[in-house]
């Protein structure tokens, strides 16, 4: 296998599992806690995030390399990157509303909240800070979104089961969700050292 392909595989495995954005890097928690109550919602959220993440990463990568660096406008990146994301989320919202209205309604407030999904902004930063090429950025963002969705679906599965368990009264609701997340995080620690 060529060196380039191996590199891409490494990016995929580390972004999705070893450095899982939620369970290892704590990024993207708000929608994680909010949307993981059902497996169906989780998959939908994961796909929406994936779409926005990949698009945003590519656009910001291009902006960074062709506009920001040559013009020394690095200090404006926080503002511009997040505005790009906001615009893309608007687009996704319009698309969903027209084509998949059920999912649109299920997502409710969480759709505009994708804009403030730390994960997307973080990924746009990492895409340029790690010095990736455009192809690597695409693979990276898809992998992160994959890891995000996997973590989300895993937790949703657990939560669906928890509904039928006897949870101590003060732990009902969010506390037990966090404890379940802690266990998931321990499991994912097992991936460390996978990528040399």
């Amino acid at each position: 296998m060529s060196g380039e392909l191996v590199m891409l595989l490494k990016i995929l495995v580390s972004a999705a599992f070893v450095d899982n954005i939620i369970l290892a890097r704590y990024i993207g928690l708000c929608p994680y806690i909010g949307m993981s109550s059902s497996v169906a919602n989780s998959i939908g959220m994961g796909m929406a995030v994936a779409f926005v993440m990949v698009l945003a990463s590519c656009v910001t990568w291009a902006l960074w390399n062709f506009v920001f660096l040559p013009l020394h406008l690095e200090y404006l990146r926080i503002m511009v990157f997040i505005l790009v994301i906001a615009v893309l989320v608007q687009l996704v919202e319009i698309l969903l509303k027209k084509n998949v209205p059920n999912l649109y309604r299920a997502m409710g407030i969480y759709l505009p909240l994708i804009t403030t999904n730390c994960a997307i902004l973080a990924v746009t930063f990492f895409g340029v800070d790690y010095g990736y090429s455009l192809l690597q950025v695409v693979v990276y963002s898809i992998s992160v979104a994959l890891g995000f969705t996997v973590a989300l679906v895993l937790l949703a599965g657990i939560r669906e089961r928890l509904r039928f368990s006897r949870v101590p009264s003060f732990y009902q609701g969010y506390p037990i969700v966090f404890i379940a997340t802690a266990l998931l995080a321990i499991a994912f620690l097992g991936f460390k050292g996978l990528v040399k």
Partner: protein
Amino acid sequence: MREFWFYLKNGIIGENPILRLMIGLCSVLAVSVRVDNCLAMGAGVLFVLTCSSLVISLLRNFVPREVRIPIFIVVISTFTTIVDLVMQAYLPSLSRAMGVFIPLIVVNCIIMGRAEAFASRKPPLFALADALGMGIGYTLVITAIGVVREIFGYGELLSVRFLPASFQGMMFMILPPGAFLLIGIYIALLNRFVGRVKQ
């Protein structure tokens, strides 16, 4: 005037952003490994939250409904960038330790969430009260987590050796699982002592 104090207290306890509203979590767990990071983050969030809420509240009658989100974003990201630049210049080691989480203040759900739900609808004085309350509530929780994590994870507090040298440190507390566990316990504790939130 009584309302001012109500909103302030509310942000700290009743609607504590982290333990009740479940917003602003990412930064809390990632940054809370050392107490000095917590205090710096708390200060940063407090600054951005207060300035943004104030400005957004002052602008609330001049901002057309349709573009309010982009305008919030511009205001919040301006203050976030200021914090980022100032920290890089005058607190470089802290800036490096906190890494990407300083620019991530801009997507801290607390700031955006309060701008939309509160600051854009209330007069500046109340927006200020809410912002201060939320900021203080945030700082208290993140520090409470940080204290436990630093003591049990490193045996230190504010980088001062606290526990005997024979205490190796629970790695569990420094890694993500420990943080998640701790927050779950804190929420449960708050539920126990301050009354349950409606699910």
